[in-house]
C-alpha cells in the first residue's frame, strides 16, 4: 500500500477528471462553446511530456557520470513514454483545432513547433538504433539528449511567443487562465494535470521494468 498509493491516486484522479471534465459546468464562450473541455485533456498531455523528458535528461546526465546501464535504460524509456504523450497532445490539439479553427492542421506556429520537438526525440531514438555498441550508444545518445533539451525548451516556450499564433495564450489571444479558468474549471484542471503526470510516470516505470527484464534475459 505504501508503494502503490500514488498509482491509486493517479487512477482516481484521471477517472474523476474524465467524468467531471465531461459533466461539470463550464463557462459558455463564443466559438469555444463546449470544446473548452479539451483543456482538461490536451494541456495535461504536454505537462506529462515535459516531466518525462526532464526525467530523461536527468538520467542522461547521471549516466554520463556513472556509466551505468540502468540509467541509460531509464533515460530511453522515459523518452519513449514522453513521445506517447507528445503524440497524444498533438492529436487532442488537432481534434480541437478542427472544431474551433476549422482544420486539423492549420500550420499554426504552436502546432509546428510542437511537431518539431517531437521530431527531435524521434531523432534521438534513431540515433540510438544507429549505434550497435552498448556503452557507446549510451554515451552518445545521452549527449544528444542533453544537447537537444534546451532546444526543445526554446521551441515550446520561447519561439511561439515571438510569432502570431491562434493558440490560446499566444499572439494576443487570451490564455485560458486569464479570463475564464474559474473555480469550477480549476477543480478539474489541476487534478487532471497531476493525474496525467502520475500516469505518465507509471507508464515509464512499467516500461523500464519490462526493459530491464528483457535485458537480463539477453545477458543470461
Amino acid at each position, binding site marked *: 500500500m505504501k508503494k502503490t498509493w500514488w498509482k491509486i491516486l493517479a487512477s482516481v484522479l484521471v477517472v474523476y477528471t474524465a467524468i467531471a471534465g465531461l459533466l461539470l459546468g463550464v463557462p459558455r464562450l463564443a466559438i469555444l462553446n463546449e470544446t473548452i473541455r479539451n483543456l482538461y485533456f490536451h494541456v495535461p498531455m504536454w505537462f506529462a511530456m515535459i516531466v518525462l523528458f526532464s526525467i530523461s535528461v536527468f538520467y542522461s546526465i547521471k549516466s554520463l557520470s556513472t556509466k551505468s546501464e540502468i540509467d541509460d535504460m531509464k533515460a530511453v524509456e522515459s523518452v519513449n513514454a514522453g513521445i506517447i504523450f507528445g503524440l497524444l497532445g498533438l492529436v487532442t490539439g488537432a481534434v480541437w483545432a478542427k472544431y474551433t479553427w476549422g482544420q486539423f492542421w492549420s500550420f499554426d506556429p504552436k502546432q509546428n513547433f510542437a511537431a*518539431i520537438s517531437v521530431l527531435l526525440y524521434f*531523432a534521438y531514438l534513431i540515433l540510438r538504433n544507429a549505434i550497435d555498441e552498448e556503452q557507446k550508444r549510451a*554515451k552518445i545518445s545521452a549527449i544528444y539528449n542533453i544537447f537537444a533539451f534546451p532546444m526543445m525548451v*526554446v521551441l515550446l516556450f520561447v519561439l511561439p511567443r515571438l*510569432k502570431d499564433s491562434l493558440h490560446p495564450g499566444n499572439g494576443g489571444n487570451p490564455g485560458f487562465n486569464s479570463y475564464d479558468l474559474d473555480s469550477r474549471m480549476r477543480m478539474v484542471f489541476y487534478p487532471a494535470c497531476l493525474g496525467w503526470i502520475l500516469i505518465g510516470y507509471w507508464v515509464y516505470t512499467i516500461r523500464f521494468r519490462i526493459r530491464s527484464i528483457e535485458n537480463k534475459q539477453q545477458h543470461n
Partner: protein
Amino acid sequence: MQLAKEVKYLIHKEVLLEWRSKYTINGVLLYVVSTIFTCYLSFVSLGDKLTWNALFWIIMLFASINGVSKSFLQETKGQQLYSYILASPAAILISKTVYNTLLMLVLTTIALGFYTLVFDSFTPPDLMMYYIAVVLGSISFSTVFTMVSAIASKAGNGGMLMAILSFPIIIPVLILLIKLAKNAVDGLPWENSYDEIAMLLVVNVLVVATSLLLFPYLWRD
C-alpha cells in the same frame, strides 16, 4: 592562457590544412554556385521577395550542412587520437567552431553576392541588416553543426545521421533567421529586429555552453 594558445594553434592548423588542399571551400563554393544556378534555371525569375528570401536560406542551410559536417566526419581515427593527445577537448571544439564560422562567413558572403547577381530582380532595401542576418546565420550554423557533426562522426554513420540529428535543432534558429532577414527584405526599422537578434545570440550562447560541457564526454573513447 594555455587554452587560448592551443585554440590559436589549432585554428592555424585548420586554416593551413584548408589552404593547402582548398578542398572544402572550393567544393562547397561549387556546390552553392551550382545550386543557385539550378534554382535559377528552374525558377527563371522569383516574382515574390519572400520566396527570394526563403530560397536563399534553404540553399545556405544545405551548403552549410555540407561544409561544416566535414570538420569531424572527414578526420580519420588516427588524426582524432593525435589531437586528443595534444590538446584539450575544449580547445578542439572552440577551434573547430571558430574555423567553421570563418569558413561559413567567406562562403555566405560569396553566396549572397552571387545570389543577388543571379536573381537580380530584387535586392533587400536594408542590405546592412540583411548582411547581419547572414553573419548571425553563419555563426549559428557553425556552432550547431560542429557539435552535431561531432556526435554523428562518433556514431560512425556520417551523412544521413547528420541531417536527421541537425534538422530539428536548426529549425528554430532558421525560423528566427528567416524572420530577421524578412524584416530586412521588408525594410523595417531596426527597432523591430532587436528581439530576433537578441534571441539568436541567446540561442548561440546556449548551444556553445552545452557543447563545451558535453564535448569532453563525447571526445573520450
